[in-house]
């Protein structure tokens, strides 16, 4: 701009046009944009975390809502139950169903003679496989002596195999004509072309790849040094040397073991697990018996590879053979897992359900609600409307605010010391859990109720007083009903908090393994979050899915409760 005329003071010029000024402005604007982006990044990271959490839970949890079973014809022998007890449901229920289901399985996959094979085959089914059959027979005893088509529950490992196969399976048609030497036991298969040369190469490649990964592992371990790792490194080095020798040897014969991918041959309706491979012949053990030892034409037989080595998965080659065969025959069915919602806890993942925990949560929340709504609302009304302003009410105010921030586990200690140890209430009972949770959420409800009461304009109360109502009539007939939506919103949020609370309930013994569904307030019970904690601690992979499934149910309830709170707030919120 222009200098101010007539002053001797050094001229002040607002410099907005020079290059230096433009640079300064650019810098300041860049800083502005940077600062703004920090906020967006922070919100983005948080959103990403929530999304990852929800996605992870749903990915793990969805499979828990379905369950695979084998729907097959089960022949129930006529002498299954003693003739005089044919119609007695108790006798029918207590009968031994294992032979019946075993025979049905053996009929589906014939020719399994060895003890070990039979044991593996029956392990495909859950120990509760016959539950549905049992229910049907008990309901309709006339089915005894007939063949019943019924779903048999698969074991958790088999179920998991169908949900997430533990190995990719590669099949390749044979080029030459193959001739097996027998139908069971150890056999050799000869082929007219050198079909297995490629397999020998692929085995050598797998061995080389494995040696390379082991070498990296050994290098990593040796960077740590230390005596404790030395034996492990030596072990790995020996294995590497062995694998390398195998890769380098010009021999065309390869011996297979569980540490390399499994090779099998599907021929004449049977399955042979290979133990030794040369270019034109293989030797192996029959897993599923062949129908005949006849020649198989090119294309009629296949070489099958289970890419993941047997030692790296939970299901053996034999089990995969059984399961794939059952699937080919169309027995396997994936159905909605109603048991998850109707059964109590169990040690077997496929039999475990959340019913007991849900009922436990319900009973506990009932106690909490019954205690903390009346007490919380009355306390809030008293403090807001009737309490004299003195030291005691001041202390109560400060105390309520602090109590809201006390760690929940401390409330558990209170419950343990006072309710269990001093009053001798029963352990693990919803009654005690509800008491502890009521004390825990009481401050939240009092604070919410006070805010709701405060939001009602004083003119309402004054008008009531003006027409002759007593103070209590004015409050209970006019102010409280107007504050009710706000109080309900606070109550629902408090209940949602109580539903998700775990730590204090661990202290009062609600972590016991309880199979029965609780029926009374003093029965031993557990609650949904504690059930989640218990399951997450178990080693079985299937329980991990169950945990995520239970979490989905819990989050569903919380979502509903918070949704109800938001709806109430939106619907009844009033600006005076």
């Amino acid at each position, binding site marked *: 701009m222009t200098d101010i005329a007539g002053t001797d003071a050094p001229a002040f010029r607002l410099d907005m046009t020079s290059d230096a000024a433009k640079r300064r402005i650019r810098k300041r604007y860049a800083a*502005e944009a940077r600062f703004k982006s920090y906020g967006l990044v922070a*919100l983005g990271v948080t959103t990403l975390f929530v999304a990852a959490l929800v996605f992870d839970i749903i990915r793990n949890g969805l499979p828990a809502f379905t369950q695979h079973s084998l729907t097959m014809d089960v022949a129930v022998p006529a002498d299954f139950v003693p003739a005089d007890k044919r119609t007695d449901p108790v006798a029918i229920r207590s009968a031994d169903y294992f032979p019946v289901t075993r025979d049905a399985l053996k009929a589906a996959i014939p020719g399994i003679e060895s003890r070990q094979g039979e044991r593996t085959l029956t392990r495909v089914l859950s120990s509760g496989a016959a539950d549905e059959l049992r229910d049907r027979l008990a309901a309709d005893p006339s089915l005894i002596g007939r063949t019943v088509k019924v779903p048999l529950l698969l074991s958790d490992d088999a179920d998991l195999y169908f949900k997430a196969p533990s190995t990719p399976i590669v099949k390749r048609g044979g080029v030459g004509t193959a001739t097996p030497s027998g139908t069971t036991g150890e056999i050799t298969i000869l082929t007219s072309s050198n079909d297995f040369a490629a397999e020998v190469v692929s085995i050598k490649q797998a061995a080389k790849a494995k040696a390379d990964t082991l070498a990296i592992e050994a290098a990593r371990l040796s960077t740590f040094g230390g005596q404790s790792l030395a034996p492990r490194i030596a072990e790995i080095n020996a294995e590497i040397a062995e694998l390398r020798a195998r890769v380098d040897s010009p021999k065309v014969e390869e011996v297979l073991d569980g540490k390399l991918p499994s090779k099998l041959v599907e021929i004449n309706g049977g399955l042979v697990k290979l133990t030794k491979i040369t270019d034109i012949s293989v030797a192996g053990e029959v897993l599923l018996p062949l129908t005949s030892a006849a020649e198989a034409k090119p294309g009629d037989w296949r070489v099958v590879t289970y890419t993941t080595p047997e030692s790296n998965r939970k299901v053996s080659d034999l089990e995969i053979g059984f399961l794939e065969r059952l699937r080919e025959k169309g027995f396997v069915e994936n159905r909605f897992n109603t048991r998850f919602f109707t059964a109590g806890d169990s040690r077997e993942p496929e039999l475990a359900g959340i019913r007991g925990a849900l009922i436990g949560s319900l009973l506990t929340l009932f106690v909490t609600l019954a205690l903390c709504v009346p007490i919380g609302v009355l306390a809030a009304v008293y403090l807001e409307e009737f309490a004299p302003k003195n030291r005691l009410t001041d202390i109560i105010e400060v105390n309520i605010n602090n109590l809201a921030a006390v760690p929940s586990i401390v409330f558990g200690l*209170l419950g343990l010391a006072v309710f269990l140890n001093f009053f001798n209430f029963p352990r693990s009972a919803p009654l005690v859990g509800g008491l502890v949770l009521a004390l825990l959420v009481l401050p939240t409800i009092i604070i919410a109720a006070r805010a709701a009461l405060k939001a009602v304009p004083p003119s309402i109360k004054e008008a009531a007083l003006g027409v002759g109502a007593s103070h209590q009539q004015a409050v209970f007939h006019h102010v409280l009903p107007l504050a009710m939506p706000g109080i309900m919103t606070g109550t629902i949020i408090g209940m949602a908090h109580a539903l998700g609370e775990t730590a204090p309930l661990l202290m009062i013994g609600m972590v016991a393994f309880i199979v029965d569904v609780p029926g009374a307030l003093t029965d031993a019970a557990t609650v949904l979050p504690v059930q*989640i*904690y218990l399951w997450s601690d178990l080693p079985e992979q299937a329980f991990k899915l169950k945990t995520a499934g239970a979490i989905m149910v819990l989050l569903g309830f919380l979502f509903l409760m*918070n949704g109800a709170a938001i709806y109430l707030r939106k619907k009844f919120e009033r600006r005076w």
Partner: protein
Amino acid sequence: MTSLYFLTLAILVAAAFFLGRQRAQSLITGGAPSLHSLPSYHGMLPMSAVLVAMLLTYVIGTNVVAKYAESSALAMLGAETVADPLKRSAGLRDIQNIATGKHSGEASAMLKDAAQQFASSSALGNWMVYGLGSLLALIGMGYFISRISPVYRARNIFEKLILVIMGICATVAILTTIGIVFSVLFETYRFFFDPALKGRPTVSQFLFGTEWNPQAALRADQGDIKTAFGFVPLLTGTLLITTIAIIVAGPLGLFSAIYLAEYASPRFRAIAKPILEVLAGIPTVVLGFFAALTVAPLIRGWGEQYGLDVASESALAAGLVMGMMIIPFISSLSDDVINSVPQSLRDGAYALGATKSETIKNVILPAALPGIVSAFMLAISRAIGETMIVVMAAGLAANLTANPLEAVTTITVQIKTILVGDQEFDSAKTLAAFALGFVLFVVTLILNVIALQVVRRYREQYD
């Protein structure tokens, strides 16, 4: 018995209300209301008399009867059983099982006699309670109904009763605090000073010991089992995880709050705020599951890629997820504080030519600093007291380390580990959990009191 009692209660309550109201109504003559109180108050007064009398009688009476029946039945089992607490509780259980018909196996004649005694004395006692309760209820009802007259101030008396009940409700919060303090303090005192307790540490051993190894002596003759109650490794473990959590949640929460309060359009706020609320509403057991089964293996995998040895229960995983848990605390509290900075301060800064970020950095944040500090303190107190995430994702062994890749344990994990399962209240191990709870309570209380005080003073400054 119980159902009969409460049936009688319901009948008497209804009768009292209607009799009282009718009596009062019958006094209204000639159409003009000549009563001091409304008729329903005249009904409610005898009704509350019935309620109070019968409920009090029930609560006190049944407890007295149960105690009496137990002691009279136990007396039949001999003095030896009464004196030994173990035999006493076993005998009691047997007696109750026989009395309710749940006993399995053949019971001895003596036990059967005792059960007989138990059943008969408790039945007699319960009938006495029933009679007494009904009698008191009728007396109270009769008294208040007989007092009904046009000038009788039934409403005032009833309202006084309601006031007393409301006052009692308001003191429940205080009673809870007292209960917490006393239960924790009493067991902590025993932990340090009970001469009968084996293996108890001194206060300085507890506060400055660097080894934590609580063991319970399983048998009485295992006098010299090696135990150590050094609190330091638990403290460092808790602080390590809390520090990681704050390092994660501090910037994320604060920058989110600044953006939401200063930059975001109302529409953006309407989308972003619920996300934070969802995060705040997720139960910690869910976050713990995520930490233990997804985040921890992920971190371990990354560490392996870079040649680092990461424990499968690393402090880093627990700290990261705990940080995520406390983001909503920091952001919503800071958001409130920033919003309550007066607009005039912003306008002044803009008038001087400051950009928005310069205003925030140089004017708003300094003005909001006390509030933000207290938001951080509340978040720290949450993180210290949080249990499920660390129970599921942190370790059990008490390592004295500052390496976030190693497993550490925290105060809450140890409380949970010690107290879950069967516990006896006369072993140092169990009492140690209460001492830890005491420390936890005191530390979080101090943080909360200071933070709430700061917030309160800060609000007053700008209101």
